[in-house]
């Protein structure tokens, strides 16, 4: 013990202190709640046992019971649709915009900066705006679709079970596109220009240059963005609260919203924690992909 203190005092153990402080911080604020959450998923935690320190241990009963509930699979399917739909939309539109601004016309960087406005807006505000846009009676989206002849009757986006999930997906794509665009813009600008010149001299046209230079050089950025997208969409909560509230009849409910609903509306904290643990596994997987993709950056 005295040796450890001495090594800190003479500066040799200082690096351990520097690592230790953030590590302790992380453990207290992220590690402990995570462990506590896992623990709760193996306990019966409801209004009666919430206040006690030692709660009844139920093993994997929560997991078994959860998967016996009829709404579980539809909600997990909704989650999958929400994640894939949001990421695909954000990525494709974000990449398109990034390529568009990459052509650097006058004012390009200024305009690109303005796009970030959508990302800095709180989810609840975005939800409120999209509530108006998506509104069945007076919504602007319905107006455009109707006037352009795509639909004949109004779509009740938020209350029609066939559309309610897509209402949130659309809002989420709008919210996340600019973040995708900025990261992809950074990735694009990191590709040395002389590679394109070399490829041009080697006979590649614009389309071939995109497939053989741009895309492979963007691999790590794309990997990072998909992984971050998975994390962000699994965290998306505000939009559900603001637009559909998971309804009607769970048609737009997703795992993260359901976990909150179970815990704080139905007061079944054990089952809420169980869903969180299942989601944590997916997010951990995404995090591992993200860390790997940033490590594999291509350098010339």
């Amino acid at each position, binding site marked *: 013990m005295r040796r450890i203190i001495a090594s800190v005092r003479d500066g040799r153990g200082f690096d351990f202190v520097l690592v230790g402080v953030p590590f302790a911080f992380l453990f207290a604020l992220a590690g402990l709640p995570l462990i506590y959450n896992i623990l709760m998923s193996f306990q019966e935690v409801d209004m009666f046992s919430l206040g006690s320190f030692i709660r009844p241990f139920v093993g994997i009963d929560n997991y078994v019971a959860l998967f016996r509930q009829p709404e579980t699979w539809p909600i997990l399917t909704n989650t999958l649709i929400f994640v894939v739909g949001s990421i695909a939309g954000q990525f494709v539109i974000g990449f398109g915009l990034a390529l568009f601004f990459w052509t650097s016309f006058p004012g390009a960087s200024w305009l690109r900066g303005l796009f970030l406005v959508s990302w800095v807006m709180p989810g609840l505000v975005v939800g409120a705006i999209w509530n108006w846009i998506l509104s069945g009676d007076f919504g602007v989206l319905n107006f455009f679709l109707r006037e352009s002849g795509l639909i004949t009757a109004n779509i009740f986006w938020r209350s029609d079970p066939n559309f309610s999930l897509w209402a949130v997906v659309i809002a989420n794509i709008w919210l996340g596109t600019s973040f995708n665009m900025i990261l992809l813009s950074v990735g694009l600008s990191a590709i040395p220009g002389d*590679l394109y010149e070399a490829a*041009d001299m080697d*006979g*590649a046209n614009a389309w071939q240059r995109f497939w053989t230079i741009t895309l492979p050089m963007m691999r790590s950025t794309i990997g990072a963005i998909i992984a971050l997208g998975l994390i962000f969409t699994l965290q998306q909560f505000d939009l559900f609260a603001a637009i559909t509230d998971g309804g009607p009849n769970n048609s737009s409910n997703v795992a993260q919203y359901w976990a909150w609903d179970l815990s704080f509306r139905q007061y079944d904290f054990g089952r809420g924690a169980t869903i969180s643990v299942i989601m944590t596994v997916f997010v951990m997987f995404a995090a591992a992909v993200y860390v790997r993709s940033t490590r594999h950056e291509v350098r010339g």
Partner: protein
Amino acid sequence: MTQQIELSGINKYYGAYHALRDINLSIPKGAFVALVGPSGCGKSTLLRSLAGLETISSGDLVIAGERMNDMPPRKRDLAMVFQSYALYPHMTVEQNLTYSLRIKGVKKAQAKKAAEEVAAITGLSDLLHRYPRELSGGQRQRVAMSRAIIRHPKAFLFDEPLSNLDAALRVHMRKEIRALHDRLGATSVYVTHDQVEAMTMADHVVIMRAGVIEQQGRPLDLYDRPANRFVAGFIGSPAMNFIPAKIGENGRSLVLDLPGTQMLDLDLALQPGREVLVGVRPEHLVIAPPDQLGFDVPIVAIESTGATTFVTTQTSPEIVFVQNGRSSLQAGHTVRLGFALENVHIFDAASEQRLSGD
């Protein structure tokens, strides 16, 4: 000889900036042409205009008989070796080499065979499966060259390809590039700021300054008969000495602006009293016996490389001369320097153009 590349009246503007001024240049098939000049002289711009990476504002660019002004780079069939090499970092050496072939749709087996053949020439056979980041600077340089060779292009364009290598490797690669050029019977345009590279590698040297071709010709012709003071000072190391002088009253003699000089007879007639610059290369200055024509100069510094000794004088402007082997001179000595008249270049003091004949 057929002309592989023909530039006539090429001008290039960046906004109001006139980067290339009325460039005329003919490059015969099989020639090795060096574009040389200080940075910002337009030599790289000229090369990139050839490649199609820059557009030409006016004039005609003809490659192998075809006007190429508005042709995109990929249709010009020229290969370029970049200063940064511009290797594709996500591809192995073999993929780098075969990129152009794969784009053209050449079969895999055939492309692989071509890569192996070129790699054998450039000594990359063992490195075909490495990535560029796993190669040394010299090896990357070879990959960049091989990528150009594999295409059998109409011409090779080199943009300061050796400037990122260390001095020893640079001297070696100089010979190797020239040997490859001869072996392939290629046409090459080589941009460099190093006059030694230009002199040793090229058949035809083009000296540029501020977007203008100051002089072009065979390397030794430029050395022997520089057209103006800039070219005279640019070619040769150490650089030529320039001594201010006046033409004597008879118009056939020269009075150097140095203490204790006599009149030197000229073999050409110039306007009496005209101010000129006399250029003498350091290797043409000799120590003269006291009874011969010359000028007395005090010595301020002696630098010896072993094989040769550079001596600097305490005059204004300072004069450098070269002695072979070791020198017995010391700083503080005064020597009498002389030169043969046929080794003297006379330039007009104002226009800096050459006055003396051949």
